[in-house]
């Protein structure tokens, strides 16, 4: 009797354990949800909710000091942006000019340096560290340093130019040179992209290169037919992040030039215009509308890039994988 009860008990416990294991197996994704819950809460509280509120404000005449619900004005802010605001188009032009040059140049530079740092050379760890260190310098510090370097009269760059007989460049005082100066500054922090490229390069199987070498493929051919195609996912990622960041350029101009964007507003980038509308003119509703437009533009570019990636980004031989 005693043994029978014990067996029944053991059998019940085993069933219970089995059921628990099965339940856990069926709901194993729950643990993932638990782990991402803090991030998800942050996303909702700090991104989604402000975004929705910002969207709402963009349809209002929200001024500093408004208590209670701000006056609803429908699409007035948007109409004003597209019909009356000459700094909208100017700041958008400056921003697109900036990212049109800075993003490809930075990608190219980061990729090129990553290729060099991927070589098997003695002391390579030191070189990698040296190239990455500038990325660790805070952007504001780098900007201040560049402002000194680019000073027309006392900056090191112009002093060198004069020494070798090149006419000095008015980096920060000429409307023609402000955007190139910002682009040069943007190249400074290429280290983060370089590291991603380097990781991508190291994940390319060596046997592909060996096979190409056996078939007589030289360095350039290997680069063109193996490295670049296999690096397209990394290039795509860096391009996407670069475009998004390029549209949001602000700090460099704010620190190195001024809130007006320098002579003839040559450096008036879009985010600076948003900032001026919010914190100089205290037109928060209008600034919110400008932000929404920027969001839509970035969204459009992101979707376009993702869509285009089907044509040029190589994600592996999916058909053979399925087989």
């Amino acid at each position, binding site marked *: 009797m005693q043994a029978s009860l014990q067996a029944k008990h053991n059998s019940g416990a085993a069933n219970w354990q089995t059921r628990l294991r099965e339940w856990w197996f069926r709901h194993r994704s729950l643990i993932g949800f638990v782990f991402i819950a803090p991030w998800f809460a942050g996303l909702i509280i700090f991104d989604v909710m402000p975004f929705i509120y910002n969207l709402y404000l963009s349809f209002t005449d929200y001024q500093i000091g408004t208590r209670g619900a701000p006056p609803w004005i429908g699409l007035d802010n948007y109409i004003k942006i597209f019909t009356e605001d000459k700094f909208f188009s100017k700041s958008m032009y400056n921003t697109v000019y900036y990212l049109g040059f800075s993003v490809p140049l930075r990608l190219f530079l980061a990729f090129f340096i990553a290729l060099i740092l991927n070589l098997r050379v003695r002391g390579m760890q030191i070189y990698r560290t040296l190239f990455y260190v500038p990325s660790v310098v805070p952007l504001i510090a780098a900007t201040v340093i560049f402002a000194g370097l680019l000073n027309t009269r006392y900056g090191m760059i112009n002093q060198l130019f004069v020494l070798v007989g090149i006419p000095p460049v008015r980096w*920060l005082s000429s409307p023609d040179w402000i955007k190139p100066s910002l682009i040069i500054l943007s190249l400074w922090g290429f280290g983060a992209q370089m590291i991603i490229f380097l990781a991508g390069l190291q994940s390319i199987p060596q046997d592909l290169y060996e096979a190409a070498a056996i078939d007589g493929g030289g360095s350039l051919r290997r680069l063109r037919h193996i490295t670049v195609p296999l690096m397209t996912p990394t290039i795509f990622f860096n391009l996407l992040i670069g475009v998004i960041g390029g549209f949001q350029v602000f700090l460099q101009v704010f620190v190195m030039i001024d809130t007006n964007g320098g002579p003839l507003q040559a450096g008036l980038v879009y985010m600076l215009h948003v900032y001026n509308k919010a914190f100089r*003119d205290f037109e928060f509703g209008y600034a919110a509308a400008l932000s929404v437009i920027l969001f839509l533009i970035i969204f459009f570019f992101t979707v376009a890039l993702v869509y285009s990636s089907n044509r040029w980004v190589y994600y592996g031989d999916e058909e053979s994988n399925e087989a």
Partner: protein
Amino acid sequence: MKLSGLVRLAIVLGMLLALGLMPAAAQSCDGEMINLEFMNWWGAAREAYMDELISHFQAENPCISIENQVQPWDNRAELLATAAASSNPPGIIMTTRPETYQFAMSGLIIPIDAFVEQHGTDLSVFYDGEIGIQYWNGELYGLPMPTAGGLTSLFMYNKQLMAAAGFDPESPPETWQELEAMAAAITVGDPLGVDVLGVSPFATDTDFVNWLYTNNGKYVSDDARTLLYNSAEGVETLEWMINLTNTINGGVENITDFYQDASLPEGDHPWYDSELAFMSINTSHFGHFNVNRPELYADTSYWGTMLRPYNGENPEATHAGVTGYGFSGGWAYTIPKEHPPEMQEAAFKFAEFIGTHELGGCAFLFKQGRPSPVKACNENQAYYDVNPYWGVVLAGLETDTPVPITPVQGQLAEILRNHIEEAFFGMKSAADALNDAAAEGQAILDEFWAEFDAGM
């Protein structure tokens, strides 16, 4: 024993005497303590002066504690806007005139007329122009300190550069024409632009308005409803500024480069190195000069002070300064609406101390060698010891003309500045620049007044 008793008595009397002589800061508060955060921009050497002012105030008001929160200039607008609009703003805020008007319009700060009446504050101690510009829509929102005047009417000049160019260093230029002739003789170029600069009109709305008034022009009508700067005087002024910049200084970019990273308060400026002959100043520059280069400041064979030259070819023109335009337009100490009445009253007491008390703004500005908006403070003869050109400073204050502005002044200034820049860069004529700016600015001004009148 008797001697010992006398000694003890003497000690007690001494202690009592000492207590009597000690500043009232030692007094304790017998009521509820009120803590005020004082948001201000009195940084650099002025921070210590402000601390001293606060200690004097607290000595007289032991139940009010002031926390001196000096703010950085970077992100100023952002800091101020978020602080003022928050549900827990600072107890008292140092605001520029456009900000005072904006916050008053938005209902973020309170008018102080009731406190003035309740405390019997004598507003007649201020220059009329100084207190006058702190009113918005008929209500007073702050007491001034420092002056809004004296910011544009004065120039410092370098006597050594004048003498080297063959001019009498004790006879600074009176007119535009004299200034131009001297600047042409003094200015020296180099491959990187300008090495020694005579004088520089700036491609900004502020400098244009400053020069405009020395050509008998006006920025706006007295009721602040009509922009007037695109007058014949305005066009003549801008043409003169551009012509001088192009012919003597080699273009506007040279000027930007010359002043790149220059800072008088931080002691890094061509003025200190005898590379600049005539420099438009505001009265804070005396203090900065004295702090950074005391030996040079004391040497009056190096520098002098003069009034801003006027257009000698315009018989109506004379020396003139502008009050209430420019960046600050007249600083004031404003009281946020969010706080309970007892905090607001404490804030007013502090504002009143800053504005009118001998140990307040009066002493604070004296230490910097700059004038006070309180007339009596400036009559202190000791000013001549602190500032060797005090007589010129007072004469400059006399020439100041108040400029009426509105809460949309920031936008109007931006429009004017942008068009002036285009004229300096040769993209349009002076007349077109001013006409375009006036047309654009007037539309904003009309819209503002239409809304304002509708809300009345």
